[in-house]
């Protein structure tokens, strides 16, 4: 789990914050509220998850409850990975 958390954090920092160290965010911070993600960002994130973790995300799963913070993502990937394994 900490590994996935670390990977998620790295992806967010590299792709949405471009490595900007000044922007600190906690595992529960909302990407939307913090202005870190836009409509393209959501699709980038989904493509990354599908490729990295070999999961398939359905349209009705594209909601902030699943994708909008590090904690949400970790729980979501965990749930999806169990369902596929």
């Amino acid at each position, binding site marked *: 789990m900490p590994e996935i958390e670390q990977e998620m954090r790295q992806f967010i920092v590299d792709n949405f914050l471009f490595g900007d160290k000044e922007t600190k965010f906690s595992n529960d911070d909302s990407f939307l509220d913090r202005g870190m993600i*836009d409509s393209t960002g959501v699709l980038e994130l989904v493509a990354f998850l599908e490729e990295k973790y070999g999961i398939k995300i359905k349209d009705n799963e594209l909601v902030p409850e699943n994708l909008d913070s590090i904690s949400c993502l970790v729980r979501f990937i965990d749930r999806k990975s169990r369902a596929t394994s």
Partner: protein
Amino acid sequence: MCGIAGVVGFDGELVAPELLRRMIDVIGHRGPDANGVYTDGPVGAGGSVGLAHARLSIIDLSGGQQPMPNGDRSLWITFNGEIFNYVELREDLIRKGYKFATHSDTEVILHMYEDKGEECVRHFNGQWAFAIWDAKRRRLFLSRDRAGVRPLFYAHQAGALVFASEIKSILAHPAVERGIDLEALDQVFTFWHAVPPRTMFKGICELPPGHSMSVEDGKVRVWPYWRLDYSHIHDRMSEEDCAGRLLELLSDATRIRLRSDVPVGAYLSGGLDSSVITALIKQCSGTRLKTFSVTFEDAEFDESIYQQEVINFLGTDHQAVRCSSGDISSVFPDVIWHTEKPTLRTAPAPLYLLSRLVHQHGYKVVLTGEGSDEFLGGYDIFKESKVRRFWAVNVDSRCRPLLLKRLYPYMQNLQAQSDAYLKAFFHVDATDLSNPFFSHLPRWELTARLKVFLSDAVKDEVRRADPYGEVKKLLPSEFPQWDGFSQAQHLEATGLLPGYILSSQGDRMAMAHSVEGRFPFLDYRVVEFAATIPPRLKMKVLNEKYILKRAAGQLVPPSVRTRPKQPYRAPDARSFFDPRTGTARHAYVDELLSRARIQKDGLFNPLAVQNLVAKARKGRVIGAKDNMALVGILSTQLLVDQFVTNTERSTADAGN
């Protein structure tokens, strides 16, 4: 159409003609046909003056040399632009006993100033930036047109007032300092432009649209003579009357914009506005009209099918320039040399290629459809704001936000979103409704995210800047009483229109190749009438520019009238990096975005820029924010490179 420059000196020295020549030479592209300088003084505390002019001959080819004096040589003018109603004004002046030595509109301005003083500008229907030296009063009077078509900048530094059509001309004055205004950079990365009078250069101001200015006894005074007012909407105006009046005004606006002693062409985008203008020109003129357009190699941006329909329908003699990604990258440094400010999109570049095409065909004047989207309600931002307002009234509605999907049919990334995300991106809150910037907050907030790329030093420097507060200061006192649609129109027409559309995409790109744009939709009679049209007739439900379609729809092919509006766009990040090879298309891109260079110039965060560049090389810069960031950073770096670091180009003619 021309370039102007000048100096008022307060140090008791004569303004050197060589200095004036240097200042005017650097903007020689604006007026390659002739140039001239005039100097006077010094006399007492009124100081000395020097005026310079670079001429693009369009009206009275033999008689319009400038700087031009009046009959007793007590007034001297340097003028860029056109006064389209000069024919009528001239007749009035002759009736009053004024004698004319030429047939130019320039001389009409001089006599109007003699007759009415500073108030003369209220009688002008046109696009202008001029300076009149009143030798008796030792006073310089400057003015700029209502919408901000023609540019005018000034710097009050080092014992002089220096002014010019372009900033590079002011920088040619040795006493003017060269430096980037960081607060302006912060504003560009919010609104796409600096808030006037601020410009990207420290200590250099823009005379805002609709303003005049005087310099007397070493004192500078700036005041508005006109402003856009949405306080008098004719609620009971019938559709038919409204459409009839609009067409009548547009036809006359087009007719007087054909006044020229050289042939006039038109830009054709394939959209409604330029098609309407082209059709109106055809009604006024018997000769076959020459039209020009840009087409794109990239099908996502290309509109040539629609252009061809209009060409066939109206029977114009058409020329097109095909634009590839490599072309954009190749001309981009020159584009920024002319815009003199960063741009967040590459869209000016194809227009630079287009004016080159016009120039190559021997044309100096084109009419275009600019201004229609702002004043008649065409932009997506108006539609988006209408939907968000509708939704904000009932924030919990499940159905209302679904309308958002109808807004941007061409944005695939948005279409793929779930309702939950859609609601989050276009967030509304009932309390937002009283925010004066309701319509523009999503755009400004998205753009402001680019500030993540600023260096720590710049972030520190602008931490206390208040960009929204700067815009708020400029709002008229009646603004809160206006309806939401009118508020959105006002923000757009006083913000992005002069700050980007008419400058970076307009005057600068056309004048780079000595081409003058003329804009019937910006005729002040059209603008003032449009400000009285009820919003329900501008956008009927979500049908944009409804009243224009009703007024002039029959003049254009049915498909142009009925197809969804496609905004003018060009490829951004992929213009600079070829995703197939992962390399930059031109060496300057690598150089200016390199870690060392970013570090040295100090405006951006080197690590963040490196990550963005890495993403661009992989072809993964696809979203609006990343694209704006890449183009914004690269154009800012080009600006610094050409105007601050390497000053050779800005002290010698650009050679265009």
